[in-house]
């Protein structure tokens, strides 16, 4: 499976090893994992992640296929969790495989940039003061614009 959307935690080492084991001809594998971090000013009790079942799968597959075509990837994987997570837990990971390292790195960055603001996930931080929806950042849109210029 190249796109995984799940509530359960995952073992990033195992996911990466399984990804790498089924490759053939790759000279480079890159992976990135996103971790729930504590908020600097208050205690984060939980991070709730909502998504749009159905559209999420379609969006992630499209992003993954775009990355494969654009960076000549041999394979690419996206795993993203939903539900209630706590600080220190892994939210998501991507992995890319290519002939050469530049394409593998660029492909992973591209996947991350599109996951940030083009996949239907919404994060809500839960603290002792209550819940607060995480706002999208202008820098995430700026990161996307980079890929459409030249």
């Amino acid at each position, binding site marked *: 499976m190249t796109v995984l959307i799940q509530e359960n935690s995952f073992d990033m080492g195992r996911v990466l090893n399984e990804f790498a084991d089924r490759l053939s001809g790759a000279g480079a594998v890159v992976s990135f994992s996103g971790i729930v971090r504590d908020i600097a000013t208050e205690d984060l009790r939980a991070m709730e992640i909502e998504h749009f079942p159905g*559209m999420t799968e*379609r969006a992630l597959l499209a992003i993954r296929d775009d990355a494969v075509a654009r960076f000549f990837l041999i394979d690419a994987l996206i795993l993203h969790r939903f539900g209630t997570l706590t600080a220190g837990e892994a939210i998501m990971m991507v992995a890319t495989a290519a002939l050469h390292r530049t394409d593998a790195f660029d492909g992973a960055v591209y996947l991350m940039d599109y996951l*940030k*603001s083009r996949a*239907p996930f919404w994060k*809500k931080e839960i603290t002792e003061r209550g819940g607060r*929806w995480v706002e*999208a950042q202008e820098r995430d849109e700026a990161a996307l614009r980079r890929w459409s210029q030249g």
Partner: protein
Amino acid sequence: MLDIRYFAWLRERLGTERETVQTTAETVLDLVAELRGRGDAYAVVFADLAAIRVAVDQELGGLDTPISDAHEVAFFPPMTGG
């Protein structure tokens, strides 16, 4: 009949995640205009359209996206994945 879905703070403010409406709206913007008339909560949620994203049949769209043949329109805030 058209299915409408709401996510994140829109879902919370409206107190519903899904509803079915009878509409003759031709575009997303027409639909928004109709929904605004459904009550105060809708007027608040759809006050600032720059803060809202839309998907028509699970594809990202815009205010001018046609919906005459659509089955489902979803409204939500800018996405925060990753």
